């Protein structure tokens, strides 16, 4: 087993870490090793009082892939998301994004590094219009400093940047085909439209990687297909996706790699075909003993 894993990895990359990982996981096969990880999670732990929500989860996400994160309710998927994006402080372990340690960073720091998330229940800004939602997101807005947006001379620069951002906002809205809703308050959108808005808004930050927490929940089949098309199109443009989803068909048909979590730890990872063949995964989902 170890030999197979090693042979597939480039000699320079086959450092002590890689060997250790290969050794620690007897199931490791060629397809399970991540060659060019953009996000690496190592032994992530999160305890809430006496409850261990995430118990030593380790996985990596391949650059430019669509990776699925699945697991039964309470497996710790959302907590893992929260620990990676800084919403929760992890109790232990390491999170590395783009070769930089982001463990315990604040949410805004994580987002500014290019790792942007959406939420299980869409967090649109209800009493702001769709366009305002979109205009909020872009990074490095000079007008976000109080004095620059107030003082006469500097305000001209702000206005100039606002004009650019407006164009980008409209383009993204057109891409997602929600431009007809641009001036609507976000609270008036349907559940599915809110999910689209949240994804569109996240894209405005020009991220490298998007983490989507149940993007299809409460979305009708037509919109779901549209959303998936958008995700594939964006992947081709170079974005990386990590998606938590309950719908197995969605995960199996759309992801190159799947990570299975169970009881706070990673149960298995690999291609959809490999995951489908794993007895343990089936048992976890059917509630059998593991």
């Amino acid at each position, binding site marked *: 087993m170890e030999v197979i894993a090693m042979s597939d990895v480039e000699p320079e990359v086959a450092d002590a870490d890689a060997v250790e990982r290969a050794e620690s996981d007897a199931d490791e096969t060629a397809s399970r090793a991540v060659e060019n990880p953009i996000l690496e999670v190592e032994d992530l732990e999160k305890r809430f009082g006496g409850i261990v929500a995430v118990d030593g989860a380790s996985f990596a996400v391949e650059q430019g892939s669509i990776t699925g994160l699945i697991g039964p309710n309470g497996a710790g998927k959302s907590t893992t998301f929260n620990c990676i*994006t800084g919403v929760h402080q992890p109790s232990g372990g390491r999170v590395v994004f783009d070769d930089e340690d982001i463990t315990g960073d604040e*949410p805004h720091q994580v*987002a500014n590094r290019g790792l942007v998330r959406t*939420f299980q229940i869409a967090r649109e800004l209800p009493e702001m219009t769709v366009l305002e939602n979109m205009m909020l997101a872009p990074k490095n*807005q000079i*007008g976000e400093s109080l004095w620059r*947006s107030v003082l006469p001379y500097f305000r001209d620069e702000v206005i100039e940047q606002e004009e650019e951002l*407006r*164009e980008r906002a409209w383009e993204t809205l057109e891409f997602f085909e929600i431009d007809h809703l641009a001036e609507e308050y976000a609270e*008036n959108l349907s559940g599915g439209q809110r999910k689209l808005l949240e994804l569109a808004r996240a894209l405005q930050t020009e991220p490298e990687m998007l983490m989507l927490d149940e993007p299809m929940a409460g979305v009708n089949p037509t919109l779901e297909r549209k959303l998936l098309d958008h995700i594939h199109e964006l992947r081709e443009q170079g974005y990386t996706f990590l998606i938590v989803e309950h719908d197995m068909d969605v995960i199996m048909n759309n992801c190159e790699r799947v990570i299975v979590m169970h009881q706070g730890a990673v149960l298995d990872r690999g291609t959809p075909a490999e995951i489908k063949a794993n007895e343990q995964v089936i048992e976890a989902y059917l509630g059998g003993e593991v």
Partner: protein
Amino acid sequence: MSGADPEGDPGTDTADVPGEDDEESAMIRPKWGSDLFLIAKVVLATYALFFVVGVLSGAGVNATVGTIQSITFWAALFALGALALNLHWGYTGMFNIGIAGFMAIGAYTMSIAIASPDGTPAGFGLPIPIGILLGTIAAGIAGLVLVIPTLRVRADYFAIVTLGFSEIVRLSVQSRSLRQIGDTGYGTGGGQGIRATPVDSVVPWLFDQPIVGDVGGVILAAGEAVGIASSVTMRGMYTFILILFVVAFYVLLTRIAYSPFGRVLKAIREDELAAKSLGKRTDRAKIAAFAVGCALMGLVGTLWMGSRTHISPDHFMPLITFYVFVALIVGGAGSNTGSVIGGFAFAAFIFEGPRFVRTMVRANLGADFPRTAYGAFAEFGAGDPTALIGYVLYQQADEVRYIILGVVLIVLMIKRPDGLLGHRKEISAGVDLSRQGTVADGGRPAGGRTDASSPANGADETAAKDGGDRDE
């Protein structure tokens, strides 16, 4: 009761305007011109109403003009307070109910700075503008000190913290130990407060200046020609200075509102975690917004107390905070134009209205009314209804204010929960956000609006309500 009468008027006046506004320019930020026109319309309609009622009821030109001057003075102050609060509550969603405390810090700092060095307690004898500046800065710093440890406190707990803070400030300046600090002679003067040159003494000073004084003299003469006492005119001049401050506040806060910074503030109000997850430094924005708002409240405190020669802790009861909140709620939180209109409507109909009625009652029925409810009902029983009217509207005029306040709040919550201006779309962006470019695109937003607003029953309801108001 006239309290109810004038109430309806500005309500219907303003009701149709936001409706039109919505239809014409949902995407476009409200235009300065049209908003200014809206404010002017409300103000002039109210002046006209008071003037006509005052003159017809025989209260006399002088008393009526005095009332109008007084309304304008309070309107300017409440508009300033509401504008500052709007930055906290309307925009950032920070539930600050410690306004009186920040006003107190501003006013006390100013008084200590400008009071005479020979007085008890002694002051520093600095010029008035420096005193105002110091007061503003002190309140801003107090806000900064308060907000940093409470950044993560939830809205309702934040409210308790700010209320507690304002009471701590009031009780501290009242306390014996700060009355005179050590042997320095400086201090807060305890319950007696501080005596200082009033800020409105800048008006007589202005009259001594070459050009401004001449203009002032002409205004004074013109006022006397139509029977307006010179003291009323002088007070009017100070009110005019306050109005200039309202304009400055409005410009500053509108700039903040229509900027990326304002957008971040709004996002914090709506969902702070979502804003953070998009990479926004919400803590920094909250600190900046809170400190600026507090500094403005301190400035309002100095301007308010500026018309007096004496300040004491009793001026800074939590009731002041409550008044400012009502002013903002009446106008519509989240809108700077609404804050100004709310401040004005509050001052005219709730704050000064009952006193005006009192003046009218005195002019028509005299001032000889029973002092107790028992006496009033006894004479009422004996067949003299004026005794009861006089008791309520003359002897209890200040208490009638609270009744009106309660009724207005209840009616507002039912009929117009978003304030007089209603739910206005005020886009927080530095530019007009409608799609630029080709003509073909021009029709799009409008088309989108009609099909999008059909599921949005909220908007339709408001529209229907607007229509209903207009019909009445």
